[in-house]
């Protein structure tokens, strides 16, 4: 998740383009990279959990944290469709709601069936954890199916047309959630009354475990051959097709993966809030998620995560000035768009391994500057060594 995924100034894949000194550079083995990152994630999770158990984080704060995690997943998943595929879907809340209802209903029904009570879900008995994980996957799959149904017709369009059609589909989903009970003749979503009695299965550990897993999966996907195909489509669809990339397939795949993770986030959201109403998943929710991606920098996973964090905490922190908080929110957005239209981080992505490698090679920015100055003096010219 922390690897550089794409960059305007630096290449994405290093094969064949490692620069002249490729042979001498020390590199971290892949296993070590994964190990370092995995340990770090575990440390953060354990510290967070200990702080909650010890009371350093209040219940209110941990609920906000869980929501932060949910929004990180939403932003990072939307980033697949906007940042990597280069499309502009406006219906992410629709997929989120499908996942939320799918997961909540699955967990409630299975809980009844297997005799797992509300309290078991909050304390987290092994069976309940299993049900919740199955529920999250189920919610994700429901959203992915919705993604296929919407993606196949929608992805024939581009730009604003795609935005409008996805927006319309998300509204259709919302209306379906509202009225499905009376059409089917039995209780499923409970319509406008709202689905209540959802066990509070979302915990700090579960949410942030999912965040880490989702980031890892997206990262590996984008590093693979499939990811490269998706990036190629963003850069130039016709050239991608002419190079042998099945563009229809990969566009749909990116869209569906994006929907799947949005569904998982929806499932976590349901367990966090405890009540679901179709009205939660309106147009504004989609916009909110899109704003997070655009603000953080399209194509930057760290950017999406950071801005999701800030934009979730900001309204909570400004609750005391509730009359003004929407103004502050809007002003922040306007300022960022004026002074940094590419988003806070542009397409930069943080990579711990890259930093460690740099230290291993003693390749510090200040040293590099001196080196290139020496090179220029020697009349070699600055060759395009991408690995600054």
């Amino acid at each position, binding site marked *: 998740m922390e690897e550089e995924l*794409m960059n305007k100034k630096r290449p994405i*894949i290093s094969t*064949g383009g490692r620069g002249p000194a490729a042979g001498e550079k020390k590199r971290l083995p892949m296993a070590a990279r994964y190990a370092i990152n995995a340990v770090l994630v575990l440390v953060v999770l354990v510290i967070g959990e200990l702080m909650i158990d010890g009371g350093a984080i209040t219940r209110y704060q941990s609920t906000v944290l869980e929501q932060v995690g949910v929004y990180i997943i939403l932003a990072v998943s939307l980033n697949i469709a906007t940042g990597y595929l280069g499309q502009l879907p406006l219906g992410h809340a629709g997929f989120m709601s499908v996942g939320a209802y799918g997961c909540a209903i699955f967990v409630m029904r299975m809980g009844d069936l297997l005799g797992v009570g509300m309290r078991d879900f909050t304390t987290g008995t092994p069976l309940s954890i299993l049900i919740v994980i199955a529920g999250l996957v189920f919610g994700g799959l429901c959203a992915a199916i919705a993604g296929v149904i919407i993606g196949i017709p929608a992805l024939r369009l581009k730009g604003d047309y795609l935005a409008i059609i996805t927006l319309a589909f998300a509204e259709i989903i919302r209306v379906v959630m509202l009225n499905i009970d009376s059409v089917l003749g039995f209780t499923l979503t409970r319509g406008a009354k709202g689905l209540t009695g959802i066990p509070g299965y979302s915990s700090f550990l579960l949410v942030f475990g999912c965040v880490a897993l989702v980031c890892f999966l997206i990262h590996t996907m984008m590093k693979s051959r499939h990811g490269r*195909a998706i990036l190629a489509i963003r850069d*130039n669809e016709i050239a991608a097709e*002419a*190079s042998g990339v099945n563009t229809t397939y990969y566009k749909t795949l990116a869209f569906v993966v994006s929907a799947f993770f949005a569904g998982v986030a929806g499932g976590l959201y349901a367990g966090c809030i405890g009540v679901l109403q179709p009205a939660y998943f309106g147009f504004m929710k989609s916009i909110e998620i899109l704003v997070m991606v655009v603000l953080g920098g399209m194509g930057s996973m760290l950017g999406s995560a950071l801005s999701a964090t800030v934009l979730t905490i900001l309204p909570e922190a400004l609750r005391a000035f509730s009359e003004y908080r929407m103004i502050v929110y809007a002003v922040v957005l306007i300022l960022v768009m004026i002074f940094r239209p590419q988003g806070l981080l542009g397409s930069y992505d943080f990579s711990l391994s890259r930093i460690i490698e740099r230290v291993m090679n003693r390749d510090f920015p200040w040293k590099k500057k001196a080196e290139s100055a020496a090179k220029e003096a020697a009349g070699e010219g600055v060759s395009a060594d991408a690995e600054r």
Partner: protein
Amino acid sequence: MALLSVRDLHVSYGAIKAVRGISFDINEGEIVTLIGANGAGKSTTLNTVAGLIKPESGTVEFDGASVVGVPAHKVVQRGMALCPEGRRVFTQMSVAENLEMGGYTRSDAENKETLEKVYSHFPRLKERRTQVAGTLSGGEQQMLAMGRALMSRPRLLMLDEPSMGLAPILVQEIFEIVKQLNEAGTTILLVEQNANMALSIADRAYVLEIGTIKKTGTGAELLVDDDVRKAYLGG
């Protein structure tokens, strides 16, 4: 037997007929060029052969098998590569990554080998292999687009207006490379508005006018043909 044979091809965009019954052949090892004015149907023909557009009627046979209705990404696997008009490179990827994308249908081992070959044809690309493609000059981008098409190891390379928007000296360089590629064994179908240059390197040529073939002959014949001179070569 011809490597590519197109028979009575008709292509329309909605109500507009762009290509009205074109037939031509390309033999293995030839450079064949389609020349003609804007809107003659040259690029449409090329895109149809490459599978980007579906024809209304007619047949396209490559190496004895029909490729009509085969999507573009599968056409690449059959051994035809299109270098699209207007230097469509992957702007945010490096030169090396662009080339790797070109070898998308091939294995890594094959790509390693082809990459060296492409670099030998385009030494400039090797120098700039870590540079981001969007920052290359027009000529370099054209070379990159051609190199990328070559990465799929095509038997037939289709070039759509490689000289477009390039300085005359670069046009010369590009055509020199096209000739080299042909000598190295790649059959080439070239679509050009720069008729003079195209005819001078082509074995055979077809002159297109409003979607039909007006004239055909060897490159040298057409270069001195009165009608062609008047219409396309400036007298």
